[in-house]
């Protein structure tokens, strides 16, 4: 502790689990927006990652409410948010935004996307998987050209609804913080937009990582055109994200309100590692430079021509650094917003506990859980192009 903090500020209210919550929902929104690139904007190069991106979004969305529940003083009363929401409260909308996104957007889109394959898989399989696929297809076994055209069109429309929904999901998370006028570190109209673009960055980087790692584990060749395109989009999203964050930073610096002194002290001391080193240097500048130089984002073939193997390695490293950077952003927002006193006269400290409900071990477990769910989803709904049932209409006919 340094300077003066209000006595009730001794305890940090929102801990590591609440850092995890915007990080995870950001990955969901980002992965979905990446998927929409193929579906709505016809970026054909990223097709190999389309289904993987959808399943990734679903796996992470299923985990998203868990850190919140774990953090509540009375998780057994959480249903009250649905039953008697306070309509003035930004947080009260979480349940509805979440339910909308899960059911109307993700589950429906995945169902329409996989329906044809599920029906065909169920026809050719035996044992448990046959029953799983039959159940998941909900008995909609019509594979006529008209029905498939409907699937396609429905999927497209859901994606079109899904893009603003993904914006809503994560913009909303940003609003939860940005609308707290009591907290000068959070209170910013840019917060939802910054959250959104950092979400897109993290989602693209995650799918890129997953695509590379899973494909390598499957001993399949990586689609270099796809990777180049992903890297280019990652670069563009990062440019917008960095521009917004710089705008926010410069705006604060230029306005120089009464909080500027304590916030500067906080950045120079408590947040130096997580903000200057991890978020800004390793998580932003290094990957931006690498991607800008070797990816085809700014110039076809990149400024420096690199062999595919090296470029893959650089993409992998950049995407991993971006994840570190985005997690640091969430940390700096959530924890940073509680490290200074609202008296603007002092700084406090946050010590991460190792075990316990809100400890490091629980956080790591909750971070690994979506990967386990994704593994199961991939088993049931293989997202690979070669797994899709070939020429369904002819086969049925």
């Amino acid at each position, binding site marked *: 502790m340094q*300077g*003066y*903090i*209000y*006595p*009730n*500020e*001794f*305890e940090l*209210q*929102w801990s590591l689990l609440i850092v995890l919550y915007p990080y995870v929902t950001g990955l969901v929104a980002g992965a979905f927006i990446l998927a929409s690139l193929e579906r709505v904007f016809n970026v054909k190069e990223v097709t190999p990652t389309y289904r993987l991106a959808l399943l990734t979004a679903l796996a992470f969305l299923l985990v998203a409410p868990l850190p*919140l529940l774990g*953090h*509540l*003083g*009375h*998780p057994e*009363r*959480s249903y*009250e*948010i649905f039953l*008697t*929401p*306070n309509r*003035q*409260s*930004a*947080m*009260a909308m*979480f349940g509805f935004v979440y339910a909308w996104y899960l059911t109307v957007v993700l589950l429906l889109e995945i169902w329409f996307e996989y329906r044809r394959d599920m029906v065909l898989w169920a026809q050719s399989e035996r044992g448990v998987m046959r029953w799983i696929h039959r159940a998941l297809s909900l008995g909609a076994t019509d594979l006529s050209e008209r029905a498939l055209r409907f699937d396609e069109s429905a999927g497209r429309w859901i994606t079109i609804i899904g893009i603003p929904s993904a914006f809503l999901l994560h913009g909303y998370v940003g609003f*939860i913080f940005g609308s*707290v*006028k*009591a*907290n000068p570190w959070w209170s910013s109209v840019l917060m939802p937009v910054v959250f959104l673009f950092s979400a897109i960055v993290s989602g693209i980087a995650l799918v890129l990582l997953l695509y590379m790692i899973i494909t390598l584990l499957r001993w399949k060749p990586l689609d270099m055109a796809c990777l180049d395109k992903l890297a280019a989009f990652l670069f563009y999203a990062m440019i917008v994200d960095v521009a917004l964050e710089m705008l926010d930073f410069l705006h604060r610096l230029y306005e120089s309100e009464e909080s500027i002194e304590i916030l500067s002290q906080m950045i120079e001391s408590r947040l130096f590692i997580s903000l200057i080193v991890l978020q800004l240097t390793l998580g932003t500048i290094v990957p931006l430079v690498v991607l800008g130089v070797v990816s085809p984002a700014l110039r076809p073939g990149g400024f420096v021509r690199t062999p595919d193997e090296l470029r893959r390695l650089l993409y992998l490293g950049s995407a991993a650094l971006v994840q570190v950077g985005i997690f640091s952003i969430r940390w700096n927002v959530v924890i940073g*917003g*509680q490290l200074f*006193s*609202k*008296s*603007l*006269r002092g700084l406090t400290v946050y010590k991460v506990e190792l075990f316990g409900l809100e400890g490091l071990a629980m956080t790591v477990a909750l971070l690994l859980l979506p990967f386990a769910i994704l593994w199961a989803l991939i088993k049931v709904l293989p997202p690979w192009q070669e797994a899709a049932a070939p020429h369904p209409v002819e086969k049925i006919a």
Partner: protein
Amino acid sequence: MPPSREPSPPAGVNPQPGLEVDRRTFLEGALKACAAGAPLLVGVVRVAGGAAQESPDAGYDPQDHYYGMGIDTSRCIGCGRCVAACKAENDVPAESHYFNTWVERYVVRTDGEVVVDSPNGGIDGFPPAESESGILRTFFVPKLCNHCANPPCVQVCPVGATFITEDGVVLVDEEYCIGCRYCIQACPYGARWLHPEKHVAGKCTFCYHRLVKGLVPACVEVCPTGARIFGEVEHRATPLARFMRQNEIQVLKPHLNTKPKVYYANLDGEVR
């Protein structure tokens, strides 16, 4: 706010807390005038007050009241009795980071440096300043929930567990609070805390259980210098209204538009 959420007063209580303060004010004058006769007078007034509270016919109607508190910082001596009384009266955990009310000490040095402290919320008073040289001025500021008329804590509560009563008091329904702590984040004054055992938000209630019995909050009751003035905001002939007429009044962090109902007189510009 739904009237059904109003804590109902026990039957047979005195509905006029303002009178209690009148008595106090009167008492203070009397004390100053004739110190020798004071103990007797205290006894008489207390007995009279006690008898009034047991009056069986009085009900409590929250619509008849709209409460606020005045604080005259120039009168606060930093004794911490208010903090102790609050903890005892409201069963606030004894640890040093749960307070419904606390007292801050400001030391402004001649070089412009401002040192603020509140050791254990000021409950045991304050240690003497290390050195008296170089001090320009020093003063105490009692703090508590401002019972804002536009409270951000009530706005953000996802389930409506924290609410404003008709008589202008911000309360928490402990049976309903889910413990998300958003209200604690939204309070600009650091006036809320999470109960370590009940896992629900805790805060100053203006001693609502006392108000409905016609008593003033415990912190007001015990303040030896009359630094805290409790009462009706809107009625003209009340101690608080008089206090607000006779002093230049400020509220904390007015730029946040929370419309606090804790009104400070003689507040230094350094106080946040």
